[in-house]
């Protein structure tokens, strides 16, 4: 027992104390002095005595090492020593260390942050049991109530079917509360939705079939978040009544925490209560979702869906442009919910992986160069008896210390970059709130760093262990051994190839965004504020009209306001339904061939407020009211395509939008305006006077002002609240923000890819420079001799550059090839150019080659200046 304690104590001391070592040194010095004193006592002169004693003793240091080795103080001790040594080395080579750390830190950070988003969004199970059995039908938000009832009777492989639609209405948490109304985003769904999702409320119950009927007392199931934040989070909430859309609605259930459908920003679920007698029954606004039985093969689902489509075709007639039966399919619910997110995520993950690849290659080549540099030191230590493994362990320790530091940096980068990254992704509808960075992320950063360290030190260690003696010989040889040169070459090639890929991607996106920016939107977004107003369904059309008239009058009178108008849907932000239109004088476009058009209701001031222009005829006027001639202003392309070569003014368009066919007279043509997307096709658009429409569905107030929107917004909101506090202002945005949001995805992707590419370029250049200058410095003696024998500096310079550039050119070629091969990945993010755009490919190749030349030129010039005498002395 005592032995064990003594042993442990000794090891502890040896391990942790420099004290043990100091004591050993003191002890040995004492010994030496005693030897010398003895010799002196025998009559030897002091100096000689000392020298002899020292010779007999051997070098004090070696003695100490021998003793310490004999201690055999366990691997751990040596590891600590190795780490200390590594830290010393790092401190001595701050520049080199900084480069590796930055490289690895950025690579690890970016990859890990991206991976954690990917795992949260794409790999984490959805909050529905056996979600792989849930499928969403084609023709999103386009199913009619009558179609749902028809499909419901032919379920086939689907055990449960449901229809739903998203909606929003002003609400107050209490029936008696006087507090202002807010917008409640909710879903209306058939009672079968809970069966399809396979999830039940954690409190209370779902609404049932009896409550999912027209005229049933209104009930609602709320989200966990709404329960906690708005309703106090207490169990007695069941039976509580909230004010929704001007009527009391009873809470019957609270969904469990973490549940969302279809998006996390939806806070409640209400019965759809399909009513065959309502005009809504025959308009398309629903999404169909179904749960199949367990283990139904995809092929069977597919054929069943085709069967349903055929049946629909026999019961309903569809216009050609709108034929729902033509391409039936179902989407897995995960794709339906997160499909938009996948592509940019995969793209960014690929980019980050490339960056990590470059970082690894860079770190490996730096470590390799360092190890070769220290060949002399290593050989010396071997000669003094240090084992191969001892040296290998030291290289490994250095790499591990670097990796650990890089991992810490990577975690910092990942934590900082995570929010930015989440912001980059098109995670609308609250999905951003469902991702978080966690311990798994940090752990993976360390694992990744460890792997990189092991890979990075593999080559140097193999060299050390395989041929230790050769390391020292190499120093005096012509230059680098062929094997080393091959590894260096391969590292340059891969770094350059990766960098080319990233630079190509960044260039493509930069050019694409330029194209996007130069797109003519057809309106002027500067100085425009928008307010999305949600009115209560109980408001009659007359009272809503009165309300909006009052709002427009009040807002127009505000100081600085130049124009104010109202529309049902905001350009570039709100999607809209397209409906088939009958065209006068085009019998060829009748029946199933009717063209679809967007249908926008506007007030006379809207065009001025948006900065849109009428290029023919007149705009919507204040004389266009209910009872006067129904009119429309149509988009440029619509007019041109329908009546080529003639004026559209005075022609008629037949719209069945409000139930019965109405002939609208075209009184004006508007300059083309980007209504839905910046880049997509230009849908035909009709603008109709709001005053001629039967509508009470709220709208978007658009205000153009000479004062900054930020200073105007509170005044407008105050005015609205004063006129009717029951109306909810759901959203306030400047038009600039709307445009920015429409461009957000390509802009942010461009930002990230540009940053990645810039880092890649710098790293690639450093890598080439490092390797070339290292190789050149190895050959200094050779150059010196050759120049002494008459070689010109130019020749030496050329040789160095050439040797450096061969792998660069190889890397560029491979990179361009790879860029062409994976061009499909980028295609969907580009506008106005292809993913193999020769300008971008050429630019990337040029930039990388130029960087390679510069990187090789610096050491080459230095080599060309080698002074023969100096170089020979130096070795």
């Amino acid at each position, binding site marked *: 027992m*005592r*032995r064990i*304690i*003594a*042993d442990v104590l*000794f*090891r502890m001391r040896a391990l942790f104390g420099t004290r043990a070592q100091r*004591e*050993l040194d*003191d*002890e*040995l010095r*004492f*010994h030496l*002095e*005693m*030897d010398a004193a003895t010799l002196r006592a025998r009559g030897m002169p002091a100096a000689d005595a000392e020298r002899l004693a020292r010779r*007999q*003793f*051997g070098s004090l240091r070696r*003695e100490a090492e*021998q*003793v310490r080795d*004999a*201690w055999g103080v366990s691997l751990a001790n040596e590891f600590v020593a190795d780490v200390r040594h590594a830290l010393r080395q790092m401190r001595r080579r701050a520049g080199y260390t900084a480069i590796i750390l930055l490289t690895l830190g950025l690579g690890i950070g970016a990859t890990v942050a991206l991976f954690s988003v990917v795992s949260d969004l794409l790999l984490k199970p959805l909050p529905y049991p056996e979600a792989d059995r849930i499928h969403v039908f084609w023709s999103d938000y386009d199913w009619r109530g009558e179609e749902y009832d028809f499909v419901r009777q032919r379920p086939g492989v689907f055990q449960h079917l449901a229809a739903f639609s998203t909606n929003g209405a002003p609400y107050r948490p209490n029936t008696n509360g006087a507090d202002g109304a807010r917008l409640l985003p909710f879903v209306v769904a058939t009672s079968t939705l809970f069966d399809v999702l396979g999830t039940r409320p954690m409190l209370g119950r779902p609404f049932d079939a009896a409550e999912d009927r027209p005229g049933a007392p209104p009930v609602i199931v709320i989200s966990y978040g709404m329960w906690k934040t708005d309703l106090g989070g207490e169990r007695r909430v069941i039976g509580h009544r909230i004010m929704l859309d001007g009527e009391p609605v009873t809470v019957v259930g609270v969904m469990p925490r973490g549940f969302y459908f279809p998006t996390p920003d939806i806070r409640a679920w209400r019965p759809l209560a399909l009513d065959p007698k309502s005009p809504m029954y025959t308009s398309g606004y629903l999404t169909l979702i179904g749960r199949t039985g367990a283990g139904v093969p995809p092929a069977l689902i597919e054929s069943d869906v085709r069967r349903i489509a055929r049946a629909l075709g026999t019961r309903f007639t569809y216009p050609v442009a709108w034929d729902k039966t033509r391409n039936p399919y179902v989407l897995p619910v995960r794709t339906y919910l997160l499909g938009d997110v996948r592509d940019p995520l995969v793209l960014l993950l690929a980019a980050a992986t490339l960056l990590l690849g470059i970082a690894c290659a860079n770190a490996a080549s730096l470590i390799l160069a360092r190890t070769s540099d220290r060949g002399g030191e290593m050989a010396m230590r071997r000669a003094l008896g240090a084992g191969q493994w001892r040296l290998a362990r030291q290289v490994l320790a250095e790499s591990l210390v670097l990796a650990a530091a890089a991992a810490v940096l990577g975690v910092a980068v990942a934590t900082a970059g995570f929010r930015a990254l989440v912001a980059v992704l098109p995670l609308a509808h609250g999905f951003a709130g469902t991702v978080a960075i966690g311990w798994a992320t940090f752990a993976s950063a360390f694992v990744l760093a460890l792997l990189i360290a092991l890979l990075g030190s593999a080559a140097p260690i193999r060299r050390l262990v395989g041929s230790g003696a050769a390391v020292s010989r190499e120093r005096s040889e012509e230059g680098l051994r062929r094997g080393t040169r091959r590894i260096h070459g391969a590292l340059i090639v891969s770094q350059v190839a990766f960098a080319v890929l990233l630079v190509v991607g960044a260039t493509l996106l930069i050019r694409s965004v330029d194209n996007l920016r130069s797109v003519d939107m057809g309106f002027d977004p500067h100085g425009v504020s928008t307010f999305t107003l949600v009115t209560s369904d109980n408001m009659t059309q007359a009272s809503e009209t009165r309300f909006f008239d009052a709002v427009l009058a009040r807002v127009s009178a505000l100081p600085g306001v130049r124009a104010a108008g109202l529309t049902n849907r905001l350009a570039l932000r709100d999607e809209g339904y397209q409906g088939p239109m009958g065209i006068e004088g085009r019998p060829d476009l009748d029946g199933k061939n009717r063209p679809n058009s967007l249908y926008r209701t506007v007030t006379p001031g809207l065009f001025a407020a948006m900065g849109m222009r009428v290029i023919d005829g007149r705009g919507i006027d204040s004389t266009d009211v209910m009872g006067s001639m129904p009119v429309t202003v149509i988009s440029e392309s619509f007019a041109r395509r329908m009546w080529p070569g003639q004026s559209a003014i005075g022609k008629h368009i037949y719209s069945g939008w409000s139930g019965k066919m109405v002939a609208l007279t075209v009184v004006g043509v508007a300059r083309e305006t980007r209504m839905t997307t910046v880049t997509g096709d230009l849908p035909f658009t009709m603008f109709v006077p709001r005053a001629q429409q039967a509508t009470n569905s709220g709208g978007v107030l658009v205000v153009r002002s000479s004062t900054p929107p930020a200073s105007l917004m509170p005044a407008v909101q105050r005015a609205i609240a004063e006129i009717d506090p029951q109306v909810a202002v759901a959203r306030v945005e400047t038009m600039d923000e709307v445009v920015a949001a429409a461009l957000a995805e390509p802009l942010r992707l461009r930002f990230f890819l540009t940053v990645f590419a810039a880092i890649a370029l710098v790293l690639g250049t450093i890598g080439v420079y490092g390797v070339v200058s290292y190789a050149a410095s190895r050959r200094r003696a050779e150059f010196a001799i050759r120049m002494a024998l008459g070689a010109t500096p130019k020749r030496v310079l050329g040789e160095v550059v050439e040797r450096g550039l061969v792998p660069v050119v190889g890397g560029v070629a491979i990179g361009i090839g790879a860029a062409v091969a994976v061009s499909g990945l980028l295609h969907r993010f580009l506008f106005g150019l292809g993913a193999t755009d020769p300008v971008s490919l050429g630019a990337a190749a040029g930039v990388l080659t130029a960087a390679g030349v510069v990187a090789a030129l610096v050491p080459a010039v230095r080599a060309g200046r080698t002074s023969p005498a100096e170089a020979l002395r130096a070795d």
Partner: protein
Amino acid sequence: MSTSSADIIRGTADMLILKLLDVEPMHGWGIGQELERRSRAALRIQPGALYGALHRLVREGWVRSYWQTTENARRARYYALTRSGKRRLDVETETWHRLAGGVALILATR
């Protein structure tokens, strides 16, 4: 100074050091001197081996060390036998005698 003295047979150093320390605590240098003196210069130990052995013995718990001032007023690390070191010495001594006896018997063979 003689350079022909045989280095200590590997494995016996521990026992000899223990034996010397059984007489009195000594510092490392003293042990080296004493070894040479008592063996009449037949045995020598290299400092590396000596201190290696000493530290090993400390680790085994057979010897303890402490710093003390010498007669010449210098600080030196002294080593002293522990009780388990004493037991160890007995075991080693017995083993050695048996071994040496065996070797002698074989060498006496005619």
